[in-house]
C-alpha cells in the first residue's frame, strides 16, 4: 500500500504568543512537526509494517508532502527519520498559501503519485482550522474518514472509528480515501493492518521517536524540492489574515481557605449556585 502523508510544520505550541505589527511574531520561534501530522506519520507506519517483527511490509511506501518555507526541510527530515520513505517539499511562504492553495497542490501531487491512501492530522495546532483533509477529499471526489481514533485495514478497505459528539462512529470507506487522525489513533491497538498480530500492543506513548539509525538513514532518503508553479498553483490566497489580537487576560482570581468559604462565595459573590 502506498500512503501519502501531508505534514505541516508549526511553531512549538508551548511558546507564548507574541504580536508584532498586528500579526503573530515568529522571530526566533522554535518549530515542530504538527502533532496531529506526526501522529499521521505514525499511523502510516503502523499500517505499513509488522509491528511485532519490526519489519516493513514488502511493497509498502510512505511519501511525506509538506508545503512551507525553505527551512521546513528540517521538520520534513524528522518524518523521514521516523521511517517515511521519501518526501516532497513544496517551497512557499505562509503569506502565499491558504487551505485552498494547499488543497490544489496536494490534489496535483496525488494525481501524479496515485497513493492508495492519504493520512493526515485532523488540524494544525497553530491555525486550528481543521479543513484541509475534508477539502482534499471533496476536491478529489474520494471518501473521507475524519477524526480517526482507530483504523482497521482489511482487503484494501478501512473501518475507521471516528470521534464524534456523543460517542465513536464506525465508518467503512474503500480506498483510495482521505483519513484525518485524532489524538487517540496512537493508542496501543488503535491501528490494525491484518499483518501485525492483533495481540501486539504499541507503547501508547504517542508517535515513535526517530532512532539514531533512522536519523542517519533520513539524510540519504530522497527529498524533492518543488515550487507552487510546478503544480499549477499560484500564490493567490483567498483567505487573508487581516490582524491578530490577544484575548484580554482573565482578572486575577482568589485562593479561598476551605470548601465552606468556596460555597459561600459561589452562592453570594459569583451568584452561580
Amino acid at each position: 500500500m502506498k500512503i501519502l502523508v501531508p505534514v505541516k510544520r508549526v511553531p512549538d505550541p508551548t511558546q507564548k504568543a507574541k504580536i508584532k505589527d498586528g500579526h503573530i511574531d515568529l522571530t526566533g520561534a522554535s518549530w515542530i512537526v504538527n502533532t496531529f501530522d506526526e501522529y499521521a506519520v505514525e499511523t502510516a507506519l503502523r499500517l505499513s509494517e509488522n509491528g511485532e517483527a519490526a519489519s516493513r511490509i514488502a511493497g509498502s511506501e510512505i511519501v511525506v508532502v509538506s508545503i512551507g518555507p525553505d527551512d521546513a526541510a528540517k521538520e520534513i527530515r524528522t518524518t523521514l527519520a521516523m521511517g517515511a520513505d521519501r518526501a516532497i517539499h513544496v517551497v512557499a511562504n505562509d503569506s502565499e498559501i491558504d487551505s485552498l492553495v494547499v488543497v490544489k497542490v496536494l490534489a496535483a501531487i496525488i494525481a501524479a503519485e496515485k497513493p492508495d491512501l492519504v493520512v493526515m492530522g485532523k488540524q494544525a495546532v497553530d491555525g486550528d482550522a481543521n479543513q484541509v483533509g475534508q477539502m482534499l477529499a471533496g476536491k478529489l471526489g474520494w471518501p473521507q474518514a475524519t477524526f480517526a481514533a482507530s483504523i482497521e485495514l482489511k482487503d484494501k478497505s478501512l473501518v475507521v472509528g471516528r470521534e464524534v459528539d456523543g460517542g465513536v462512529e464506525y465508518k467503512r470507506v474503500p480506498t483510495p480515501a482521505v483519513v484525518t487522525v485524532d489524538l487517540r489513533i496512537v493508542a496501543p491497538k488503535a491501528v490494525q493492518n491484518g499483518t501485525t498480530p492483533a495481540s501486539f500492543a504499541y507503547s501508547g506513548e504517542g508517535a515513535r521517536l526517530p532512532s539514531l539509525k533512522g536519523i542517519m538513514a533520513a539524510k540519504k532518503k530522497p527529498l524533492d524540492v518543488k515550487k507552487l508553479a510546478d503544480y499549477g498553483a499560484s500564490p493567490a490566497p483567498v483567505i487573508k489574515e487581516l490582524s491578530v489580537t490577544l484575548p484580554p487576560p482573565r482578572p486575577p482570581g482568589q485562593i479561598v481557605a476551605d470548601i465552606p468559604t468556596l460555597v459561600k462565595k459561589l452562592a453570594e459573590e459569583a451568584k452561580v449556585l
Partner: protein
Amino acid sequence: MGNVLAFCEFSGSTLRSSALANIAFARDAATAHGGEVIALLIGPGAAAAGAAAAKYAPKVITVEDGKLEHYLAETYAPILARLAKENNATVVSATATSLGKDVMPRTAALLDAGMASDISKMDGKTAFVRPILAGNAYSKVEISTPIITVTVRQSEFEPAGELGSAGTVSAAPAGEINALGAAFDHIDAQKSDRPDLGDAKVVVSGGRGMKTGENFKVLEQLADLLGAAMGASRAATDAGMVPADWQVGQTGKIVAPNLYFAVAISGAIQHLAGMKGSKTIVAINKNKDEPIFQVADYGVVADWEKAIPELIAEIKKVKASR
C-alpha cells in the same frame, strides 16, 4: 445581495440547541449580505422538524431520501453545495459540531469557497474573527471568494430567539446520491441523562489526578446535584478513565458554561483552550503551583478525596436553606 444557507442539525422534531447558534450567526450574515436566512435540514425526519425550524427562519428547506438514512459527508456535502447555488447563497454555515466540522470543508471544496472555521464573530461582510493557537490569540480573516463557508463556535453566539411569525417550509429533492463506497457501520453512543457538554450551564471536569474512572463517580454525584455535564482533561480521557467525548480542550469540546469545576486538573494550554471562556471557574487541586489556578476565579488547594464530598454536602446545605 445573497442569502445565507444555514445547515441545521435536528433531533426528532426539534432543532438541536447547537443549531440556534448557527441561526443567530446566519441572521447577522443575512443582514450584512442583504439576503435572507434559509435553514436547511437533511436526513430522516427533516420534514417533521421543518415546522420547528420555521419558528426561527423565514425559509426552511428539507431534504429526505431513503438513501440518506445515516449522515455521510460524501452524500450531504453535494446537497449543501447544490442548494447553495440554487438558492443564491453567498454564505453557507453550520455549527462547529463534529458533523459541521466534517461536512463544511468538503462543501467548501465543491463550491471553490474559502472557509472560516469555528468563528467567534463576524466583522462586516466578509471578515471573521476566529481563535487560533489553542485560543491564545484571535485572528481576523477576510475571505474573497464569491461564496463564503463558515462554521460557528456554539459558545460564542447567543441562541437565536423565535421569530414573530413562522417561515415557509418546502421540500427539495436530494438529487443524485453517491456515497463513493462509504457507509455508516455503527455508533458506540455514550448514553447519558446529563445535558450536552456544549450547552450545559454547569460543567464538572476531572483530570489525571482522579487516578481511576471509578473515582469519577464522586464527580458525577456533584454533577447530578448541579444538573451539570461531565467533562475531563485529555490526560484523563487518554488514560481511558472516562469516555473520549468528555474531553474538554483545544482538540475536544469547547465549553463556556456559567460555572466550571476543574478538579485534579493541572491546566495544560490544551485544556485551558477549551474552558477559559467559562464565566466562573473553580479549581480544586492539591498542588498550589498548578497553572489551573492562574485562570480560576476561585481556587481551593486540597485533595479531591476530601474536598468533593465536603463540597457536595455544603451545596446541599445551601440548596436546602432556600
